[in-house]
């Protein structure tokens, strides 16, 4: 396709997994909507760790204090050495360097460093588990939440969006906690500590050193602004590129057969070149920030040297103090450049947290917590089902009005009608994937809204349109229907679903591992596996949601036999396009535009000159191209 306007590109939010975390030091600006509220909420996650965090903070203060004292002790030592040696030169009676004192000082210095390192280690050690545990808790919370979010939400939101919140956004939070928070604290303490030390050594020099701070901010700010812009560009082009790749790969057959390879590659190269250009600029700008900072550091170093020289001549400062001071100025720039970008990192972290919280705040299903005692026991469910005056719509407009259905135990009910007639909706309501807007559905005279969803669904076996299989062995996939099933039961179910035949022909049989897309078996075989799964679940009520339509006609013949065996003594619903499979149904519901327009047996319905008859004749009197 040719390029389209900006509006359509917005769909490609970086959900495709463009790393949003701070891989480098600089990130594209990602502004949160409500900073304060989100920040506070993020803090609540720290609450379980507050004792440990206080301790870590304490340790950090101590560790930093020790490392900040280091240079001045070193400076004093150097002064001692210098003065000793200088004395020896000028005064022949002098003893030279006082090695005993130097040794003492150095030992003291070593002690300082040992403790400083020890404290740093303890601090990092504790932060490691705090941050990871916190993120663990957050993930757990999300997983629990996912089970409570109504299906309607997932039907509306792309999976990629949810996935990106749980992976990318949580990752961003984790790395911020691990790296930034830790270094942020020590940076602040270091800056304060060093400022004090510098001031103690020489207020005049300190003022000179501090001049470099506004100077560096002045130079760095425009650089950061630019880098943000470029990173934004990079992110956008990356989204565009990902979108193109996704389309062309999913449409590979079309691209090939219509001979569009060259056009597709040409467009890819175009976007790829743009991405290269944007990425190069972004990386370039972010790469020169540090050297520029260092250069400014060097300027202030020279200035300090000059002033220090004057001071030394006036004998108002010791040589070792200058060494210490210079060390401090060097250490001073590092935490400042570290915190220079902290505002951006925190902002994008809060934005990430906001997206996670949005997910956590999705309105939950109105669940049933207080269960009526012994409501439904799977082995005792008779399977009488009644829709009483049910009304429903996916949004504010009602699709279904005042629906009445009465099914007695053991009946086979077929639901037919054109696409969009509401067949799947009926199933959605019975399974409580969605809840009715008005009226009620009863199973054995119990209102299903009073039954916990999990319990309700255990009484209903289901074969869905989409054959969902997970990465794992075939055996595990069938066993999904009943966790406790023995190998024999699994094989028996597979045999009943006519799946045993193809499974045993696979090199690893039942232990064949299905890959992520289950592309190592055919669509029909996938269907058979899901049928086997439903067989194993052995629920008193069965729903076959157009399952048979993607299985070929011959396999279907076998499956039909197995199915009718399965349906014996069970209330069952079949949604089918092919009317041939349902002629023996006890009840046929003909749906159109959300309503049940006709119901009855095959014969009774044929007698009437209604929709069923039209559908029937259209299928069976259908002609090939005439």
């Amino acid at each position, binding site marked *: 396709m*040719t390029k*389209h306007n900006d509006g359509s590109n917005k769909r490609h939010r970086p959900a495709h*997994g*463009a*790393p949003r975390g701070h891989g*480098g030091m600089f990130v594209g600006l990602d502004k949160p909507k409500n900073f304060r509220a989100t920040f506070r909420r993020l803090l609540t996650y720290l609450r379980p760790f507050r004792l440990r965090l206080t301790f870590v903070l304490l340790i950090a203060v101590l560790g930093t204090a020790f*490392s900040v004292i280091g240079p001045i002790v070193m400076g004093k030592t*150097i002064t001692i*050495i210098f003065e000793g040696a200088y004395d020896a030169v000028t005064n022949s009676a002098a003893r030279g360097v006082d090695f005993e004192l*130097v040794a003492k000082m150095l030992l003291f*210095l070593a002690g300082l*460093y040992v403790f400083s*390192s*020890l404290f740093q*280690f303890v601090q*990092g050690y504790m932060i*490691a588990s705090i941050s*990871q545990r916190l993120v663990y808790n957050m993930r757990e919370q999300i*997983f629990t939440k996912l089970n409570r979010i109504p299906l309607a939400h*997932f039907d509306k939101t792309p999976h990629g969006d949810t*996935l990106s919140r749980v*992976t990318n956004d949580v990752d961003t939070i*984790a790395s911020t906690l691990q790296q930034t928070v830790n270094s942020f604290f020590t940076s602040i303490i270091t800056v304060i500590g060093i400022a004090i030390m510098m001031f103690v050594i020489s207020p005049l020099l300190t003022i000179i050193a501090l001049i470099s701070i506004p100077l560096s901010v002045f130079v760095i700010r425009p650089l950061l602004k630019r880098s943000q812009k470029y990173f934004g560009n990079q992110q956008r082009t990356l989204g565009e590129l990902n979108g193109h790749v996704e389309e062309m*790969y999913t449409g590979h*057959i*079309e691209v*090939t*057969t219509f*001979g569009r390879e060259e*056009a597709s*590659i040409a467009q890819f190269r175009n976007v790829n070149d743009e991405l290269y250009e944007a*990425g*190069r*600029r972004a*990386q370039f700008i972010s790469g*020169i920030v540090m050297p520029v900072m*260092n250069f400014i550091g*060097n300027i202030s170093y020279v200035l300090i*040297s*000059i002033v220090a*020289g*004057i001071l030394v001549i006036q004998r108002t400062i010791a040589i070792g103090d200058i060494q210490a001071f210079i060390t401090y100025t060097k250490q001073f720039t590092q935490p400042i450049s570290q915190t220079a970008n902290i505002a951006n990192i925190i902002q994008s972290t809060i934005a990430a947290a906001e997206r996670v919280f949005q997910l956590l705040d999705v309105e939950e299903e109105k669940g049933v917590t207080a269960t009526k005692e012994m409501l439904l026991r799977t082995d005792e469910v008779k399977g009488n089902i009644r829709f009483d005056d049910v009304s429903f719509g996916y949004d504010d407009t009602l699709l279904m009005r005042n629906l009445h259905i009465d099914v007695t135990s053991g009946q086979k009910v077929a639901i037919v009608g054109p*696409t*969009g007639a509401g067949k799947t909706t009926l199933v959605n309501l019975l399974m409580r994937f969605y809840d009715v807007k008005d009226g009620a559905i009863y199973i054995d005279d119990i209102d299903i809204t009073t039954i916990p969803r999990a319990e309700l669904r255990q009484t*209903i076996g*289901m074969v869905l349109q989409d054959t969902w299989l997970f990465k794992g062995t075939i055996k595990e996939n069938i066993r*999904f229907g009943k966790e406790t099933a023995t190998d024999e039961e699994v094989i028996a179910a597979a045999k009943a679903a006519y799946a045993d035949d193809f499974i045993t022909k696979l090199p690893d049989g039942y232990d064949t591992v299905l890959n992520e*897309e289950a592309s190592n078996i*055919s669509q029909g075989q996938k269907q058979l596996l899901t049928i086997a*799964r439903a067989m194993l679940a052995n629920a008193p009520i069965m729903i076959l949601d157009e399952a048979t339509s993607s299985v070929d*006609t*011959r*396999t279907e*013949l076998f499956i039909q036999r197995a199915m009718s065996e399965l349906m014996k003594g069970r209330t069952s619903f079949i949604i089918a396009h092919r009317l*041939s499979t349902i002629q023996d149904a006890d009840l046929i519901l003909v749906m159109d535009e959300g309503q049940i327009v006709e119901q009855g047996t095959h014969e009774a319905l044929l007698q009437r000159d209604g929709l069923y008859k039209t559908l029937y004749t259209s299928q*069976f009197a*259908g*002609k*090939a*191209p005439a």
Partner: protein
Amino acid sequence: MRKLAQYIATYKRYIFILFVLVFFQTLSQLYLPTLMGDIVDNGVVVGNIPYIWKIGALMLFVAAIGVVMSIGISYYASHVAMRVGRDIRNDIFTHVTDFSVHDFAQVGTASLITRTTNDVTQIQQALVMVLRMFLMAPFMLLGGVLMAVSKDFMLSLVILFAVPFIAVAIYFIMKKGYPLFQAVQKRLDRLNTILRENLTGIRVVRAFAKERAEQKRLQRANENLTDVSITVNRLMAFTMPLMMLLMNVTIILIIWFGSVRIDVGTMQIGDLMAFIQYVMLILMALMMASMMFVILPRASVSAKRIEEVLTMKTSKQTIGTETLTEPIQTISFQNVAYRYPNAQRNTLENISFTLEAGKVTAIIGGTGSGKTTLIQLIPRLLEATAGTITVNGKDIKLIHLDRLREKIGYVPQRALLFSGTVKENVRFGKDNASEEEIVHALQIAQADSFVRELDLGYESFIEQGGANLSGGQKQRLSIARALVRQPQIYLFDDSFSALDYETDKKLRHRLLQEASDKIMVIVAQRVSTIIDADQIIVLDKGRIAGIGTHKHLSETNDVYKEIITSQYGKGGIA
């Protein structure tokens, strides 16, 4: 990794420039401590202000050179890294576009997408870091040692004594750390896989009331990931302080031994201060090098995944040279077989039949009987592994692939549209299709009326994958896309399934008018849709179970009779 090295090698000129820049940048960095020492010894100590000014100016000059070099390094590093990324992406995309249908299924579409996008980004980021920072490490290490030795040989022995300790410490930490970092990556992938499965299968999970079991699975993956992440981060928490300690102890030793040398008068105080700077530079270089091991595991996983794609042999095809000048009259299969690579059995075997212009051929058969495989042999999406296919008597492999495909209108089972306008989507079939041709194709495909009703008509925007259209609408547009090519061979792979009866009938009627003298192949599920076909091919487990008209087959062919029974019941067709 070797393949990757080749990509970088392409830019050896830039890499060479980078090395030069890094060399001079390192020199400037190494020269600075010496100047600083001089300022102290000859300026500060003796109070020679003009000297300080002079050397200070020199220092600033040297530092400025360093900055210029650094900017150059940043420029070339991002240049090379982004170019390598771009090249890899181009190559993957071009290579994957070349993939056969089978190659594609082998890796999986989703996986191919991440390999083309995410994995390359990972490599790119690692490369920027390597070029910008790590390249400096060996120079710094070597230069630092040289400078230290030249300053004071005896004192530099302390460094030579300390370096092995640090090297050994880094070695052991990385030996432990590298597999841990890999484990983090693996477990993160695992968690994401399970999560993705849970999202795509949410209906099934809920239908089977398996939320709790699935949550346990997620929890276990979460725990595994957390455990190893904590271990890794703790190891890192151990590393930095240890390095700092080793560095500081070295400095203390240098001050001690240095003080002796100063006392004797063989060394000046400024030299000692410069020396301390060198030690710091050397150790920084070592630490930088060790940081590489944090970034490498991630990048190497990505590199491996990319290499898998790049080294995958596409089922290479001979392109052919001949063109077809006269209209296609016949396509004929002679004892054709097809076996998927690595498969045990042939998917298709002993297939012989002839397609003729002006005739409708239908293919019917069970799942896995090979219908789609068979139809995909015609545009050579798959290549027959035995037997020959001829077009107008000419071996299909001799005909130029593009010329062949130009003449084919293929409508796959799953109607897939692209983001873009309706018009653009139809034009996908024929680049230079005129307005009239597009409207005509839409009319035959029974899509014109609904397209006109859309807000912007032919210019209406279709979302990726056709998400804003119904199944039937998508199918009709994908048919129009094939029709606009005015092909000589029509291939419909179960392409009318989402159409209602009326539309289906009208469409077929118009189609037959349009293509009365063309070759038409229809794969079908329902017998009712193919009753009037000129010939019906019944496929059963990859073999032809019968060829003939409906009347003929329904009397003589057992497999066909079985299919009829399954669709119409025992009574046959009413």
